[in-house]
């Protein structure tokens, strides 16, 4: 069995959904990791869940990116450990410089919550290996600051290195190049605004997110 760790910051509110999706639906081992921990337990993948870490005061993800656990996660990631940041977790990853770019306030300036169509533009990552290339999927989004932006030079690098993983079909927030999710150069750190953990059972409207967790499991098994 593959073991996941879900980081809990004060103000995280998608942690329960991540624990449920991984433990109960994907049926993998999963443990919570409190934000004050400095020692990362022995896990195959770390999940930074959505929510409003530390109230998102200052800037979304800014305070969390300076927390003790993130310093350890940086070392974990440098050593090739798999990290997935969802929504607020994505914001934390860019604030921690584990991913390039920034997440601006949505173009509408309002919070947007709906299920949106996405394209899996890169299936050569540990997070998407079970998807078809260019597969169209549906996942919920729920954020106010998901408008991805980066300067032209970085954008070129990101595209050249195939770091863009998910794109919006119908851009909801103004993200540059319709980017909904991207990974680092080494492909072991993924950040995305949509919520795969909310889309693991068809009763909730779409189960396309389950393949993200199953892809991680497949990649971890292969690595073992």
């Amino acid at each position, binding site marked *: 069995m593959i073991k996941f760790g879900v980081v809990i910051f004060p103000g995280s509110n*998608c942690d329960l959904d991540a624990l449920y999706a991984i433990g109960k639906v994907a049926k993998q081992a999963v443990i919570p990791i409190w934000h004050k921990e400095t020692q990362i337990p022995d896990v195959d993948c770390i999940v930074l869940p959505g929510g409003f870490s530390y109230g998102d005061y200052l800037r979304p993800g800014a305070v969390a990116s300076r927390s003790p656990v993130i310093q350890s996660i940086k070392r974990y990631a440098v050593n090739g450990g798999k990290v997935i940041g969802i929504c607020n977790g994505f914001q934390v990853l860019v604030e921690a410089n584990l991913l390039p770019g920034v997440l601006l306030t949505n173009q509408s300036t309002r919070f947007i919550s709906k299920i949106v169509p996405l394209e899996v533009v890169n299936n050569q990552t540990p997070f998407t290996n079970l998807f078809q290339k260019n597969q169209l999927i549906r996942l919920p989004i729920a954020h*106010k600051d998901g408008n991805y932006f980066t300067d032209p030079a970085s954008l070129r690098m990101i595209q050249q290195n195939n770091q863009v993983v998910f794109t919006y079909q119908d851009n909801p927030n103004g993200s540059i190049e319709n980017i909904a999710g991207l990974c680092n150069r080494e492909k072991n750190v993924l950040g995305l605004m949509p919520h795969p953990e909310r889309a693991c059972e068809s009763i909730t409207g779409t189960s396309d997110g389950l393949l993200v967790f199953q892809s991680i499991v497949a990649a971890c098994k292969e690595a073992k």
Partner: protein
Amino acid sequence: MNPEIIKQFNMSIADYNEIVKRLQREPNIVELGLFSAMWSEHCSYRSSKEFLKRLPTHGKLVVTGPGENAGVISITDDLYLSFKVESHNHPSAVEPFQGAATGVGGIIRDIFTMGARPIASYDSLCFDLPDNPRARYLLNGVVEGIAYYGNCVGVPTLGGETRFDSCYEENPLINAMTIGILPKSSLRSSEAKHIGSNVIYIGAKTGRDGLHGASFASGVLDEEAQKKRGSVQVGDPFLEKLLIEATLQIIDEDLIEAIQDMGAAGLTSSSVEMAGKGNKGMKLNLDQVPLRETDLTPVEMMLSESQERMLLISKPGKEDRIKEILNHWELDYAIIGVITDTGLMEIDYHDSQVASVPIEELLNPPITSIPPVQNHSLTPPPLIIPGGIMKEKVKQFLQDPQFGSKRWIFEQYDHTLLTNTVNPPGIGASLLRIKDTDQYLGVTLISNGRNSAIDPYVGVQTTIAQCARRITALGLTPSAITNCLNFGDPNQPHTRWELSQTVEGMREILEAMEVPVVSGNVSLYNEGIHKRIYPTPTIGMVGLGSLSTILPVGFPQEGLIVAVVGKTNPSDCNSETLPALSIREEILHQDLIRFCIQTNLLTSCLSIDRGGIIRAIQQCVVYSSMGIECEFPVDTAQQWPYLRCESNGRYLISYPSTHEKAIQELFSDQVPLTVIGHTIPNDLKLDRATQFSVEKIVNWYQHSFKDYMEY
């Protein structure tokens, strides 16, 4: 005491004299503060109590009825559901963002105080017509406030309603409902149980915000009130999220014997109610209260409505563990008092006693009974204006922002969090799955002030029947309700008549349907300088059941038969009388519809309520992008009233022709069933001259309200 000071506390001279009589002395300023809060309408229900006690509150599912922070019913043998609706009208009228935000925070606290994890919120919003810029400003602020608080605190907002009527111009209504789920073992009450137990304050520090909030909500919204923005509290959803986790952990570890949130009138009402419920006394030491500003006076500490605070009574010896949990969540903790056997509320500050009054007196304000007088002074406009061309009327309806999509609102609310949401907001009742059980939960929150203005007795019954039809259309059984009674000045005889009629109407239909009231709230003094609102009872209903099938919204394919269940009476459109309501027929239709859904006879089912058949058709067409070729059983002149009237007991259903015989036999002659057409792609063909493309209907639906808000 100086009458000016008494006035500052929003207290009448008669009440003051009553206090002097009961105490046999003049109260001091702190004591006056306690009485002003506890005797306010908001805390004491002194004007509505006599009516409320007539409501049915018992039933086989009821675990906890009214009187606690929220009602509780059982879902299974060891899983409970807690829910309640509450108003935040006055604060939202002067400061829409914080008013609505703290309304959401307050109702969520009521739910986790019961030991339940909050899983969904709903909001009923009533505003002036959206062409009034101030109505749009208020609505925009309220929606932003709800989104800000609900999204951050991590409780999804799954629906509600938005209504527009000029009667809400000066006094909009913001009613928020939250539901939560708890294991049986987590149920807690607010009753102080043991003498000597410690009283513990947890959560945010106390500041000056929200002073006199309870008494502010107990007066009309005049120009003075508009200046009382300082009476509106400021919410911090991040703190509340921490408070939820800490509180649920404390309950889970069984460390407390009682718990109460500090809502209206803050420390005063929570402490007095906890001690009073257990027939105990309480001694508080205000030197221990965590303060945001150091120079707060005792009376300010007692009346502050700073948000995100709770009062606990610990089990002996568990204080250290409680402190540990609060440290983990980085929340304030202080032992501020002890339970006594004196029956007194005793308050110490700086080594001297600053108040000592019998709790009994605080909890029992004088009741001045004003006899109700019937009065039909409010005259809502008729539903339809006779004459005109049918096509124009339908078009106007389909472009009406009242009936347009409220996507602009609900897309600002996180509604997929916690992964219980089965159908998205926007139509009928909300459907949730209950994890680890075979049970589903339906929730709906609606009001209809117009109907109650025409006839408060039948009006509220119609609202309750509409709730029940929405729950039924999901295939579930109505289980219990919560209610918020939004009315005008209770010192007016006509308001008392409206209240009395409303409660009697509720009692009759709820007893017949065997649906109890388990929680509620009364909001009075909903009056501006020029207008008073329609009497507006808001009903939140929950329904439970297992489902063999989850029906889609709208028509899943072409070639299906579309029919109306129940009798349509086109003359039900005037403004003098309400459509007749037969409670017996409502129940009969509910049973039959549920049976049809459970036996998989139907392909879709939507209740017909506000807006009539045309509204139900509009929603089905929009949600499935499927049209209908219609043939109505009335002549041309009657067609618009037929489509628009709001007769009761009706549902719009669809089914395949292969089920026609079975359905005809089931309905036989006991329930009217009228086939009105069959589904076709691309177009809605109401008659030869009245046809619209599905694309156009969808476009109007998506834009009619949104364009008002984004112009």
